[in-house]
């Protein structure tokens, strides 16, 4: 029995030692860059000293608050890379190329934001996300900003807890049909009576076309398929009279998949829904939001003033007007006040380009042009507009 007792004591001593060692180690090598005081922590854990334990807890809580609700811009800058949520499989917006690189309109805006923050457009880590997980990814901090074809809606802005930047692309749902079925560019919803309309399941497009048809007083047969590739196949083979989705996608399909023996048209001229697409980020991060928003505005202003990646050096050295000078960091401290380098937007234009360059590079190849659309500049009758940089 006495033998057992001494064994017990030895065991307890070992146990005590282990807890001592265990407690004496500082925080893990994870993101919080603060260092704990090993000595105090040991004391707190080993002696169960109440006040000391309290202090440790508060300190830990502070650390958490700093990293989670702290300034996102500071966190991103410290990390040195922008985590940018993209689709990874959206034609012309974010495509994964055969060597794994990301290209497209959305990907370019990721690069623009990285150029503004770090002066290096390549300091981006793309996080490909599905539609289902994109908002969770923002909420858990897996991505800093979503450049992912996300439509700005009231529900997402308020209920879901997202904030939206300026719209970079005004999209809208349209229909596509064959000329041989007596459709033309100017056809209206009222002309589709009795047609078989196909779209992909689980999106708002389904609801939009049903609403539009009801409003126009026409009856349609609505067929939905798992994804738009299957919809297109059915359209090519004649199983569908009309397909409908966002106009940008329809133009791409028409440019690439129209068979030689068919002619397709996209109508009505005014889309049946509004789909403003732009950057999306978590709520209450105004410093970070300012950077994203003004990066977008900078590309728009540069487009308006005729500043592009090839003439930006000349423009910066010899600004045509005061606004360009301020934008490219010549005078004033506008960029510095945002927490960026004075030449932040010069880097954006130099490395990525202005709005028109980004648009043409990515969207012209699939047949989308700015002229006459909502994506023309405000001086040309479009909606692309930026507040003044002053």
């Amino acid at each position, binding site marked *: 029995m006495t033998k057992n007792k001494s064994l017990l004591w030895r065991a307890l001593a*070992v*146990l005590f030692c282990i807890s001592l060692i265990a407690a004496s180690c500082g925080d*893990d090598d994870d*993101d919080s860059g603060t260092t704990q005081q090993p000595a105090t922590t040991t004391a707190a854990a080993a002696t169960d000293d109440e006040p000391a334990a309290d202090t440790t807890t508060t300190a830990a809580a502070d650390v958490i608050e700093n990293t989670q609700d702290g300034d996102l811009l500071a966190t991103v800058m410290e990390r040195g890379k922008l985590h940018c949520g993209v689709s*990874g499989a959206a034609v012309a917006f974010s495509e*994964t190329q055969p060597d*794994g690189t990301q290209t497209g309109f959305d990907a370019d805006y990721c690069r623009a934001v990285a150029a503004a923050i770090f002066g290096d457009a390549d300091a981006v880590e*793309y996080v490909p996300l599905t539609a289902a997980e994109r908002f969770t990814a923002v909420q858990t901090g897996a991505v800093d900003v979503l450049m992912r074809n996300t439509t700005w809606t009231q529900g997402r802005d308020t209920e879901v807890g997202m904030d939206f930047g300026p719209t970079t692309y005004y999209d809208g749902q349209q229909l596509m049909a064959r000329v041989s079925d007596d459709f033309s560019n100017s056809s209206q919803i009222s002309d589709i009576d009795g047609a078989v309309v196909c779209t992909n399941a689980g999106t708002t497009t389904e609801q939009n076309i049903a609403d539009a048809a009801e409003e126009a007083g026409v009856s349609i047969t609505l067929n939905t398929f798992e994804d738009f*590739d299957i919809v297109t196949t059915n359209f090519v083979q004649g199983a569908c009279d009309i397909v409908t989705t966002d106009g940008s996608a329809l133009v791409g399909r028409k440019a690439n*998949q129209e068979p030689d023996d068919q002619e397709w048209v996209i109508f009505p001229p005014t889309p049946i829904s509004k789909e403003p697409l732009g950057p999306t980020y978590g709520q209450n991060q105004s410093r970070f939001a300012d950077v994203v928003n003004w990066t977008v505005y900078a590309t728009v202003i540069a487009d308006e003033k005729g500043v592009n990646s090839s003439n930006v050096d000349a423009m910066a050295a010899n600004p045509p007007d005061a606004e360009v000078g301020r934008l490219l960091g010549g005078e004033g401290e506008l960029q510095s006040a945002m927490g960026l380098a004075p030449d932040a937007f010069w880097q954006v234009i130099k490395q990525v380009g202005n709005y028109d360059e980004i648009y043409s590079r990515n969207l012209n190849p699939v047949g989308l042009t700015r002229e006459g659309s909502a994506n023309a500049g405000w001086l040309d009758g479009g909606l692309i507009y930026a507040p003044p940089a002053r």
Partner: protein
Amino acid sequence: MADTRAAAETAERGGAEDAQAVEALPPEQPGLPPSEWIRKNLFSSPFNSVLTVAFGLLALLIVRGLLNFTFSEERNWDAVRTNLRLIFTHAYPEEQYSRIWVCVGTIAVLAGLSVGLAAAETARRGVSVRKLSSSLVAMGATVALGVVLREPSALTDIEGRVRRDDSGIMRESFAEAMTDRWAWWLAAAVLASAGAALWFGFGDERRRETYVRPVELFMVGSAVLVLSGWIYPWGHYAFADGEFIAEPGRTVAMSTKLPWTVIWLLLAAAIAAGRSMRRAGAGPNFTLALNLCWLACPFVLYWVVLRDPDLDWGRVLSVDIPLGVLFAALGGAVLWLLTDQRIGELGRIIATLLMGVAVLNWVAGFFGWYPMLQKVRLSFLLVALAALVAHNFAGERSKRLRLLAVWVALMAVFHYMATLMNSPSTVETPTEALIGGFSVTLIVASFTLLFSFPLGVMLALARTSRLPIFRVMSTSFIEVVRGVPLITILLFFAVMLQLFLPDGMSISLIAAATLGYTLFSAAYLAENVRGGLQSIRRGQYEASDAVGLTAMQRTLFIVLPQALRVSIPPLVGQVIATFKETSLLAVIGAFDLLRMANNVIPSQTQFLGVKREGLLFVCLVYWVFAYAMSKHSQRLEKRLGVGER
């Protein structure tokens, strides 16, 4: 029976040549002449004749449809050829590609050694030259039939578009089509004449007596493929610096053919090395070492080779190594104490207490109560776990020392792996994931199997345990997991797991998915193993009790070997199912093989909407691997004599 087998083994170890062992096999029985065989098997009765003709026609129609689909001018196979790198490794950087080849080479060497060492067992089940030559002739005939069956190619204009007239697609005439396909005719002729040469080259007696091993066939087949990379103009398709490259007339790129040639040579060398080792009598010991290598292979290849961790040596020397040594020493002390025979029941109480403290300490991590390295919390849990089983090793000094040695090794491996996993990778990819495509399919499948197998066996044992607590816990786990669809579990792990983790700990999508697959697969494996456990008769238990084995010895050496042997067919079925189920990764947003073909390639501007080609290719890849696994399991069953008892 046992005596003769043992004698045969000693004879073989005595240096008998493989060829002699093969020639000692009984000659294959002569078959019926072809006309007789057809009459007897295909047209034995009027009804059977009708069935044969009807289903033969159906089969021909299906094959014709598949051929027309595959070789149609409307197929854009460039989409697959250009995207091969994306399909297999996603965004893994090209300048680091040698790491991929190191992985493939390592697996080839291990596989070669295993095959070489197991050659004695497979020698009995080769293919006779007679069968081989008739198969070759049949393959030639099939190719020729396919050439005739396929509809004439469509005519294309200069830009490669299919020409049409009022009646539809314009096609060349049948005669033109047949002459255009001279390369296929040549292939058919080569196959058939190779078969004929084998047939007539060997006499009737010898072609029935001479056996060729499957591995030799495989090596010849793969050699033909690798050689064709140097000779045949497969074409060079790539994407470099933002430009698509398509050069149809060239042989494949040097960065493809050279590594594969080297790997073929490595494989051949490894097989030869394995065989000579077996002949030298190094069999059993070496097999054990090899199996340990296989076990370590996924960890080492993924965390060391593919990720190339950037170790912070200052930290390793000041924190990681002392921590590992400390836990090894302290845990060792605890275990030494608990394996003391005098401690008795008190030991178990201490172990349980230790477990309680460790679990509390782990739970504290979730609330961030006091900061501590996750590694420390985990090591502490491991100490407690080892303490719980310590009483099984109580007694002799050598037994206790063995437990201590296992413990020290465990700590070393655990701390090494934890350090590797927490170190940042030097391999930089544009996207968040290190690797994707088929590699991620393989990684998830192999880690799932590695983790779920022991878990499944433990669950099965727990479910048949006499202790109600184990039985209830295991049964409820199995029934809950089996009652929930896999995709639900995966979505739960992909989306929700992050919210359940302690502060400052994050888990990647792939790791979360692997965890989900592991739990799911373990529940099914457990049921398969339980079926095996139930097939063991009471006499086995009683006999092992009678010779004085402990419960653990009985389970490890008597029950499990028999139970696992019986459950091989369902286990392999489960393994194949798990491999194929990895395609569900596409649904939770991981860039696996299926997602590449289904979403990523069709959304490249260059290949917009080109989906069917990629999907067909993905089917082929899955089929090749699943079929190989199923073949291997058939051999395993035969070797262990499942179903012959």
